[in-house]
């Protein structure tokens, strides 16, 4: 049974087909997870905005060069890794296993690069005295929200890298099919999407106004 056509199985979709969304259960499950995860991130970003608005002494510690340019480069890496993931999904659906595995691993390398560069930035901030509970330039809550938000995102990227490696291994061994690759792609694009909000809110809105 290569293709399930709900129109032939149940008359029309309104009769209640076997697949009302015309997707497999894995994909629907991933979409539901992403729906709830996007609410987690929205509330985290809104909490950051609220705390920042409440403070009278909120720091804007990021110089355009290098911090903002560095964050822009991180955005470039994530966007490019999303592109390779799209290519991986397309190759997987054409059952070009080797090509798909290479693209998935390239995506994972992009994720690793992102985490490494971001951690280097964190350590630079630690060296300047910014920690999750202290801040030499103003409200200590800055550290709490900054490291909380970017840390939650970094956790997602790290989990994504592990997820992609497992998928690449399983797909290479033909234990997983193209649907598995597509579902992991959904997760990876979501991680990319969240960064599209964290990058402007946390970095661009905190660019130093001096100089």
């Amino acid at each position: 049974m290569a293709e399930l056509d709900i129109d032939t199985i149940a008359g029309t979709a309104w009769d209640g087909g076997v697949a009302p969304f015309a997707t497999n259960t894995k994909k629907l499950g991933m979409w539901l997870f992403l729906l709830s995860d996007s609410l987690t991130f929205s509330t985290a970003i809104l909490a950051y905005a609220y705390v920042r608005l409440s403070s009278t002494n909120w720091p804007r510690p990021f110089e355009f060069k290098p911090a903002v340019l560095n964050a822009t480069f991180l955005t470039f890496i994530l966007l490019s890794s999303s592109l390779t993931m799209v290519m991986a999904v397309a190759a997987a659906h054409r059952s070009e296993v080797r090509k798909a595995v290479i693209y998935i691993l390239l995506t994972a390398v992009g994720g690793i690069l992102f985490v490494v560069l971001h951690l280097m930035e964190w350590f630079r901030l630690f060296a300047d005295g910014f920690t999750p509970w202290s801040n030499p330039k103003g409200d200590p809550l800055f550290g709490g929200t900054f490291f909380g938000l970017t840390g939650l995102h970094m956790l997602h990227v790290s989990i994504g890298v592990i997820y992609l490696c497992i998928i690449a291994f399983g797909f290479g061994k033909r234990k997983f099919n193209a649907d598995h690759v597509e579902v992991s792609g959904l997760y990876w694009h979501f991680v990319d999407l969240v960064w599209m909000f964290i990058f402007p809110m946390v970095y661009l809105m905190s660019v130093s106004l001096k100089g």
Partner: protein
Amino acid sequence: MSTHEAAVETHQPGSKKLFMWVWFWLLILTGVETLLAYFKLEPLLMLTILVGLSLIKAALIVAYFMHLRFEKIGLFLFIVPSLVFCLVMILIFVFPDSLRIVALHNIHP
């Protein structure tokens, strides 16, 4: 559907060229955002533009990279309105209090 052969012949819409274009436009929009930070616009104006651009970028990613545009309309109607509803519910509670804080700052600068 249990073996991997089932998914072999599924047709995947969207060409390589299309995805390259989406990627290209996402980079352009990111460049514009960074440029705004370079010019250091007034915060409220900058925030408005940034949120607008980010929503466009998110829509591009969801529609093309995450394939939602090529899915059945039912999946879209299942996911997007519920997300918007939840976000509106959050904002209904956050906004009035945020405006109150802004007003307090204006009274006691």
